[in-house]
């Protein structure tokens, strides 16, 4: 049996799955102590089920998102090695930032060496300022990590107790500013996250759950909870990823659909294209800070069932804030939920209170409660449908760098709008009507997120880059740099080398049984020509364990690989 738990902003949801059937569900409020909410939900669904039967537990949590939002962490100092390019004034962060000399180019060649005196000075200044956490990040460090590694080792030599993160280990894609942010946030959250992970593992152990425990990542894959300590920020936005996977499990395989998860204060939108959730082209943005974290393309719209509705002159306006529960549930202000109640689209709360809320807004304008309610729902629906349109436009605008990519671009418009989350039923049919789609409210829509967590599966990636002219290769995820001795090294050999590293990584994470089919997600080979003669090849290969989910719910379809 599989367990999925989503510790969300307001609710913690849990499900117990057995061969694609939902055996138990739980919904409890999320309290400040995330662990206690998690355990409470877990205890509800585990009632009567022996712990030994649990094969896998997958969590998703707002833990890291909360930490970052509330800035509950020690300051992180930065040592950056940006070299030429953008003016260094662009690298201004809300912390002490020291920029030192040293240049690595796009092929990983050292153009300018580090200046030891500058390295020492930067470290000493951070020490004087009281920093004990440092992120060291260089431009093109994933092509050559020597500079980052050297600075880190100097720090370790001087201050063994400091926590040091190096850019290429955290964020190996091209994009230096995002690498800086990713490294900084990793450094900031790591110790608190470690503490959380250890508490969860201890608590599960006390309940007799000795099986493997995973955490959901923003891209919809999972990592063993213990190893996720290395990459805490990969777990941001695991909530929206959970809902999207949940819908993927609740609709027929291969379907194309828009996922609309309407919560109390936000509505999350995602796309499932031919059965696969769409990945964002760029890394996730955390409170305006751009990271390199691979994530599903989820758009959060600040409107939900608890959003405050007010009258301004003759206008009725839905605000993005929440000031408590809906009026019909004893809250202070009218909300879209009150409108739904008046229109008979929900059974939540007290109908008289809901009407009263509509009267508060409508009386001065001489509009009847039903009309006020209709207008509020209209406003919410309009906001959401506009955002869905924008999401398509963004997706179609994704750049293409090859002729075939441009040619295969076509307009895809899903026919199905799937609503999940507590407030979905009241809105989804109208959203669908407006977009000319079919509305679907799947069974278990209230706990789709927990189902998504339960059916998610481990994903591991390996990005290999080989430069045969220079006789070197690197494995992005491991920060490994090796040499190529084989004079006949080519694309096929690069691919088997990448697969070898993927297998090695799977073993390292105890996931060798999950390796299964390997997907090649990128294969680029460039001939390097100098003076009309081919002098070498640049080979970029990305391989990953198969993406997807373990089960479709209620269909009895058991996916391969398990």
């Amino acid at each position, binding site marked *: 049996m599989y367990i999925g738990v989503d510790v969300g902003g307001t609710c913690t949801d849990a499900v117990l799955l057995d061969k694609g059937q939902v055996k138990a569900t739980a919904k409890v409020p999320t309290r400040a102590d995330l662990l206690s909410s998690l355990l409470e939900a877990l205890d509800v669904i585990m009632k009567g089920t022996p712990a030994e039967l649990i094969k896998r537990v997958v969590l998703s949590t707002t833990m890291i998102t909360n930490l970052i939002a509330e800035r509950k962490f020690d300051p992180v100092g930065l040592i950056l090695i940006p070299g030429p*390019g953008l003016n260094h004034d662009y690298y201004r962060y809300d912390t002490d930032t020291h920029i030192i000399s040293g240049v690595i180019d*796009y092929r990983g060649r050292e153009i300018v060496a580090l200046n030891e005196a500058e390295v020492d000075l930067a470290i000493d200044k951070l020490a004087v300022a009281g920093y004990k956490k440092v992120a060291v990040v260089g431009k093109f460090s994933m092509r050559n990590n020597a500079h980052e590694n050297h600075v880190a080792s100097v720090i370790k030599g001087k201050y063994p107790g400091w926590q040091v993160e190096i850019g290429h280990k955290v964020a190996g894609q091209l994009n230096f500013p995002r690498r800086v942010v990713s490294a900084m946030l990793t450094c900031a959250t790591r110790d608190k996250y470690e503490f959380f992970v250890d508490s969860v593992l201890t608590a599960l152990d006390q309940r007799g759950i000795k099986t493997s425990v995973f955490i959901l990542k923003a891209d919809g894959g999972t990592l063993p909870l213990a190893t996720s300590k290395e990459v805490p920020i990969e777990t941001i936005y695991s909530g929206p990823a959970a809902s999207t996977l949940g819908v993927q499990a609740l609709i027929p395989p291969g379907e194309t659909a828009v996922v609309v998860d309407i919560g109390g204060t936000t509505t999350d939108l995602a796309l499932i294209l031919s059965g696969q959730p769409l990945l964002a082209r760029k890394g996730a943005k955390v409170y305006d800070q751009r990271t390199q974290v691979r994530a599903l393309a989820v758009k959060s719209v600040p409107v939900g069932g608890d959003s405050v509705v007010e009258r301004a002159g003759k206008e009725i306006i839905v605000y993005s804030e929440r000031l408590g529960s809906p009026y019909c549930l004893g809250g202070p202000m009218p909300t879209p939920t009150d409108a739904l109640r008046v229109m008979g689209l929900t059974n939540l709360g007290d109908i008289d209170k809901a009407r009263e809320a509509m009267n508060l807004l409508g009386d001065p304008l001489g509009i009847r409660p039903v009309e006020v309610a209709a207008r509020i729902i209209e406003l919410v629906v309009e906001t959401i449908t506009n955002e869905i349109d924008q999401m398509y436009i963004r997706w179609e605008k994704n750049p293409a760098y090859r002729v075939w990519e441009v040619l295969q671009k076509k307009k895809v418009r899903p026919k199905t709008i799937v609503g999940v989350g507590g407030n979905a039923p009241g809105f989804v049919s109208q959203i669908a009507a407006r977009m000319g789609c079919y509305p679907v409210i799947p069974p278990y829509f209230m706990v789709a997120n927990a189902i998504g967590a339960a059916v998610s599966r481990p994903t591991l990636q390996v990005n290999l880059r080989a430069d045969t002219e220079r006789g070197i290769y690197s494995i992005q995820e491991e920060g490994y740099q090796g040499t190529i001795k084989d004079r006949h090294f080519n694309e096929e050999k690069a691919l088997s080398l990448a697969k070898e590293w993927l297998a090695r990584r799977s073993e390292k994470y105890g996931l060798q049984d999950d390796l299964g089919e390997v997907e090649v997600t990128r294969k680029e080979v460039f001939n390097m020509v100098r003076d009309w003669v081919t002098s070498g090849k640049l080979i970029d290969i990305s391989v990953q364990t198969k993406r997807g989910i373990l089960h479709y719910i209620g269909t009895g379809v058991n996916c391969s690989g398990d």
Partner: protein
Amino acid sequence: MGIKKTGLIFFPAFDWAISPTHPEREERLLYTRDQIFEEGVVDLPEIEEFSPRLATIHDIARTHFCIPRVQSQVTEAHLIASGAAMLLGDRIVSGELNNGFAMVRPPGHHAMRVVHGNRGFCNINNEAIMVEYLRRKHGIKKLAIVDSDVHHGDGTQEIFYHDPDVLFISFHQDGRTIFPGTGFTHELGGPNAYAKTINIPLPPGTTDETFHYVLDHLIMPILNDFKPDFLINSAGQDNHYTDPLGSMLFTAQGYADFTRKLNPHMAVLEGGYAIETALPYLNLAILMALAGQDYSYVREPDYRPGMFKERPEKVEQVHKMVESLLDVWAKKDEFDREKLFGSGKFYQRKKNIYYDTDYIEEEQLEKVRQCDQCPGYMIIESGANRGYGALIRVLAVSIPFTACPDCQTEAYEVYEQGKIEKKQFDYIYMQDKSTDTYLAYERNKDQEWVSEGPKPEV
């Protein structure tokens, strides 16, 4: 809301090459991609990246006579490169974008009006196709193109040679020392577009300093006088000091300063073959200059201030050329038309055009109607020998956007007559920009095609 952005279309055509080891190959923009992506500039709020779209056959036919047909001269990569420029052009004209950079390949500035094959790595002219599109679609009246490639932009020059509404300025390495061997100061445009072509040949070894002297004292004053509604930079980068094809000494900073001062609506990438030592830095610097960002920290790895010196006598030579071209521009409306172009009904010139990539030799007779009501229609007779097989001979008629009724009528008579009487031509073409109608007649099959778009009214 907010700031107006710089639009970027980066289309490196990672799956297109002329041949595997040709300078115009897949690898050309690879390191540029690495640099641009690693800098993270596309995340800047001032820059927005777009996906390219394809130009249509109709868009190509508006600019070129492709022999025998558009489809036989262009690949999808060409349609994407032109389409990218058009897409950015649309958004700039509509006011959505402040300016744009089509960082695309394949390049186009050596492609002329008649296209028998590939010359100077180009098949079709991305800038010219955009210009004709912007005029047709948005009714833009006056445009200017400044070509900063080390090679003379002979294709662009040829296409607009008789067009008074398109100012073409090219500075480049002296044609006596580099392909295509043209672009001298006396090439100034046809009778109806005199001084709307300006060539500034520079001696090999010219540095940023002289480059900017020419910009400040000649190019900018002419542009300020002409006042184009839309300004395009054919942003070739082979004037760089590390370029393997050119012998000039421009730097990334020099190019970026040029872009900032010129402040074009659009930059379209042309040549530039120092793919490692120049292009990553140049493209980054030009993009940042367009977006109004500080590019002062962009430096080539081996660049040291003061590393280039020019010979004073060469500098003096350039200053003199600037003087005389300024004089030409000042007196552009007073030239002796009869003395320069004769008094015949048509002004005509003979051209021999060599397609270096495809080894084709073309002989061309170009006639333009000396009309005082409009820029005049053109009749082109062209024969090309591919070195094997038979000579292909074509007759092509082109009607300008602002043609007068007489020129329109006459031009159609020439076309119809050609179909019936001029048996020596294998293909006969009509390019009517005034009604956006493009026709082609194949004698062998006795068949006529109309490109998509509005059909001619009978």
